[in-house]
């Protein structure tokens, strides 16, 4: 009777089964915070009155939003995070030289695995559903209490099943699939619910595609976005994860509030127009949209495959001279791999800038803030009013392929046309 998510939560709560709506107390396998949410969580943790975190191996602290520090206040936040990590003996603290954007970094380091229960004080913590984990975003106070006691409360969620069928056409990536889904169900279409991804079509999706899809479950209001674990996933985990783990599949008679069948072969590159991720158009409906800036990066699309696609489109060409093009590898390892593969050299020759890993411009932090009236095309995850800068600027969301093709033309362009 249970969904994948309900099975994981039942086990973590020490129960045989759970039903949608049931309140449970679940043991936590991993807790994550960054340089924005971490300091608030540490301040709250200190109010509890315990001296030590419940398990220093299960806390991950990653300064990634405003590092290398953009100003004095962010430097002080990072300092607080660093000193807490040192004082508590937190093993998984990643300093600037070995860091990455948290949701690119944790899977790469093998810290998340099937069946694990992960909370993070960052809304995109749902990314780890790609490896069959239950992972969800929480606030700093929830994280603080989790760090003290090692468990937290959940309401076992109802679920929506997405049966993915068929093979996506060339240039249709995980980003296009999830933008299509958000456009279809709306920014609150999965509110409080699990999004569970199954079907024959998932065998055509790389792990990087799946991370992108799970990452944006929150943009449909989802509590988590989880994939069934298959051979592709197991082979990704093989040399990374040292913990023993169990994989979960939904029962045949699991209850879903809704089931959608999606034929991936019919999808097209998709762009979300301002100011909500569900305001989507397929590339053939976009029209003439000139842009001022292109961003390729973020926890949504800063992985090696994202950079490879951009490289294949941009190599040997020049970015349009009306544009600023900013490329941000997701982790130091991805940066190094892209360097060895020659991607970085081609990006720079094409006229793009390449940054050290950071969330930077995605949330309007730094490294590419927009002026009044400017328009960015970005592989990031949100296009709310003022998200990347001035309240009268605009953000359009797309895949790395559309971003790279548009970098060459100066307006939103389908990769098939380059």
């Amino acid at each position: 009777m249970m969904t994948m998510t309900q099975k994981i939560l039942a086990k973590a709560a020490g129960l045989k089964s759970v039903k949608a709506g049931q309140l449970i107390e679940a043991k936590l396998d991993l807790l994550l915070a960054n340089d924005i949410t971490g300091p608030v969580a540490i301040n709250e943790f200190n109010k509890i009155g315990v001296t030590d975190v419940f398990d220093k191996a299960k806390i991950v602290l990653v300064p990634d939003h405003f590092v290398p520090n953009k100003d004095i206040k962010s430097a002080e936040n990072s300092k607080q995070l660093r000193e807490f990590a040192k004082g508590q003996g937190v093993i998984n603290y990643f300093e600037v030289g070995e860091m990455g954007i948290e949701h690119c970094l944790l899977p790469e380091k093998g810290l998340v695995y099937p069946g694990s229960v992960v909370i993070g004080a960052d809304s995109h913590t749902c990314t780890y559903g790609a490896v069959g984990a239950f992972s969800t975003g929480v606030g700093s106070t929830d994280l603080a209490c989790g760090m003290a006691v090692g468990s937290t409360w959940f309401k076992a969620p109802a679920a929506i099943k997405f049966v993915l069928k068929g093979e996506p056409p060339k240039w249709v990536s995980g980003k296009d699939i999830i933008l299509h889904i958000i456009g279809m169900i709306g920014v609150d279409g999965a509110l409080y619910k699990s999004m569970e991804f199954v079907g024959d079509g998932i065998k055509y999706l790389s792990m990087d595609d799946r991370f992108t899809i799970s990452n944006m479950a929150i943009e449909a209001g989802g509590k988590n976005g989880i994939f069934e674990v298959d051979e592709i996933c197991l082979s990704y985990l093989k040399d990374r994860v040292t913990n023993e783990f169990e994989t979960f599949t939904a029962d045949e008679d699991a209850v879903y509030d809704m089931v959608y069948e999606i034929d991936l072969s019919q999808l097209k590159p998709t762009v979300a127009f301002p100011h909500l991720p569900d305001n989507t158009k397929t590339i053939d409906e976009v029209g003439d949209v000139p842009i001022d800036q292109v961003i390729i990066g973020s926890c949504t699309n800063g992985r090696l495959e994202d950079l490879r696609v951009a490289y294949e489109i941009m190599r040997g060409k020049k970015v349009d001279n009306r544009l600023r093009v900013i490329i941000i590898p997701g982790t130091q390892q991805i940066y190094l791999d892209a360097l060895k593969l020659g991607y970085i050299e081609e990006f720079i020759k094409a006229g793009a800038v390449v940054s050290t890993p950071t969330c930077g411009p995605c949330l309007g932090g730094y490294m590419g803030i927009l002026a009044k009236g400017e328009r960015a095309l970005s592989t990031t995850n949100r296009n709310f009013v003022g998200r990347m800068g001035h309240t009268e600027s605009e953000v359009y969301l797309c895949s790395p392929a559309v971003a790279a093709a548009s970098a060459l033309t100066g307006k939103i362009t389908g990769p098939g046309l380059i």
Partner: protein
Amino acid sequence: MAVKGKAFKYGDNIDTDVIIPARYLSSSDEKEMAAHCMEDLDKNFVKEVEAGDIIVALKNFGCGSSREHAPLAIKSSGVSCVIAKTYARIFYRNSICIGLPILECDEAADNISKGDTVEVDFSSGKITNITKNEVYYAEPFPEFMQGIMDSGGLINQTRKKLGL
């Protein structure tokens, strides 16, 4: 427990980036957050808000980021309660954790206008629109969440649980 104040009225999908923009996230000082609350959506909010006032919105209030700065900014600005049709789940959870009362009620969300004087009784879920002479009912908090609110937030409840 009951609160009373004038209503600020907003629409669907009010996101955490407009509740407290990321350019202010370097600080976690409550006064500073309150000084910029809602400024990208409603520049007059900070000037007009008084202790006890109530925010009323439509669906999916607080969508987007997990930043606890968002309910903290609202609470620090003096708002006594938020009423909406639905909430993004992390915002909902964060509000309970920090002790910001938050109710779901379609009828109140549809019928309360900006400036209406509204009274909310948390124990019964009764919402009285004094200006329009109307009454609406929200579901009261589930007992479990009421317990967190009664303790003054999750930190205090955790302290109790640990015998501290």
